[in-house]
C-alpha cells in the first residue's frame, strides 16, 4: 500500500523552531580536527551530529572543551560482533569517544554519531557530553559513551580530533542549538 509524501507535508509550517543548525563543517581534504568556536550562548543544550570516517584503525574520536588540556574523564559501553566491553579513563587529557568508521578514503562507509551537551551555558555544574555511535561496513561497533571535564565554565568551543590519524574526506560535523 503506497503512502505518498506530500498529502500531509504542510503540517507544522511556520512554527518557531526549538532546534536550530548553528554550523556544519565537512572535510574536503583529510583533516586532523574540527573546531566549533564562538559557540552562541542563547540555547539550553547543544547537539553535534557526526558522519565520520577515519584514516586510522580503532582509535577513539577525542575532544576538548574550551581548549582545556586536563581534567577529563570518559567511559564507554561498546558492542562489537557478539562481544560487549566497558572501558574508562580518568585524569585524562581528552574526552574519549567511540571510533569513527575506518576507511582512509578507500570506502564510502561512514559512522553515524550523535553527541549531546546538556546545560552547556551553566556555570555551576561540570560539563558533561554523552554520545551514541554506530558503525557497520568494514568494522562493526555500537557504543554508548559519556565524558566530562572538571570545569564549570560555559562551553564556548569544542574541538574533535581523530585519535591517531586524520578524519577522511566527507567527514561531517554539524552543531545544533536546542532551546529550553
Amino acid at each position, binding site marked *: *500500500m*503506497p*503512502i*505518498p*509524501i*506530500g*498529502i*500531509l*507535508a504542510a*503540517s*507544522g509550517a511556520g*512554527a*518557531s*523552531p526549538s*532546534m*536550530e*543548525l548553528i554550523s*556544519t563543517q565537512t572535510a574536503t581534504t583529510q583533516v586532523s580536527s574540527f573546531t566549533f568556536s564562538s559557540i552562541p550562548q542563547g540555547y539550553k543544550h547543544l547537539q553535534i*551530529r557526526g*558522519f565520520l570516517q577515519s584514516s586510522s584503525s580503532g582509535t577513539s574520536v577525542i575532544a576538548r572543551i574550551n581548549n582545556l588540556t586536563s581534567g577529563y574523564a570518559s567511559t564507554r559501553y561498546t*558492542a*562489537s*560482533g*557478539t*562481544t*560487549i566491553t566497558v572501558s574508562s579513563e580518568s585524569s585524562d587529557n581528552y574526552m574519549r569517544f567511540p571510533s569513527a*568508521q575506518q576507511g582512509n578514503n578507500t570506502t*564510502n*562507509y*561512514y*559512522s*553515524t554519531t*550523535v553527541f549531546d551537551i546538556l546545560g552547556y551555558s551553566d556555570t555551576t555544574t561540570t560539563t558533561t557530553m554523552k554520545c*551514541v*555511535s*554506530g*558503525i*557497520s*561496513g568494514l568494522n*562493526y*561497533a*555500537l557504543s*554508548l559513551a559519556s565524558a566530562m571535564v572538571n570545569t564549570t565554565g560555559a562551553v564556548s568551543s569544542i574541538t574533535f580530533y581523530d585519535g591517531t590519524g586524520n578524519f577522511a574526506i*566527507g567527514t*561531517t560535523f*554539524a552543531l*545544533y542549538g536546542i532551546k529550553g
Partner: protein
Amino acid sequence: MATPTFTPLLTYTLSSSVFYFDVTGIPSGYSDLYVAIKLVGSASSYLRFNGDTTNVPYKYQRITTATATGNASASSSAGVSSITGPSMSSTPTLWNIYISQYGGSKPKSSFMEWTQIAGTSYGREVGHYMWDKTAALTYLRIGSSGASVSAGTEIAIYGVN
C-alpha cells in the same frame, strides 16, 4: 525566523491491516531523515530502504535486551535482506530511525532503536544499520514477516537540516 531543523513531511495512521506499506516520494532537499513509528501488529516487523532486498544489502551491529532483567546481547552481520524491527503485538512498540545523508551517493548509515513493554514481555534494541547501496533513498517499506501490520500503526517522517 530561523530555518526549522526538523520539518514534518508526513504523519499517517493505518486505517486497516496490511502485509506492508510504502512511504513514497521522499523529497531530497534535506540532510538527514528521522522516522518515528508506533507499531501495532503481529509477527516480526521489517524496514527496507527503497524496498531493496537485492544481494542482502543491510549490514548491522546491535545490542538487544529481551527480558525485564536479563543481560544485553550483541550481534552483527555483513549482509541481511531487511532491517529487523520489533516483534509486533497489540501493544504499540515505539521505533525510531535516524538516517544520515539519505539523499547522497554514499551507503546509508542509520541508527534505530525500539522499546517494547507488552504485559510481561519486554524488549529494547539499539542498532546501527548500513544500507550498502549508493542510490538515494526515495521510499520506505515497513512490513510484517508473515502476518500483518495492524490498523492504528502510526508513522511520522521528518526532514532534518
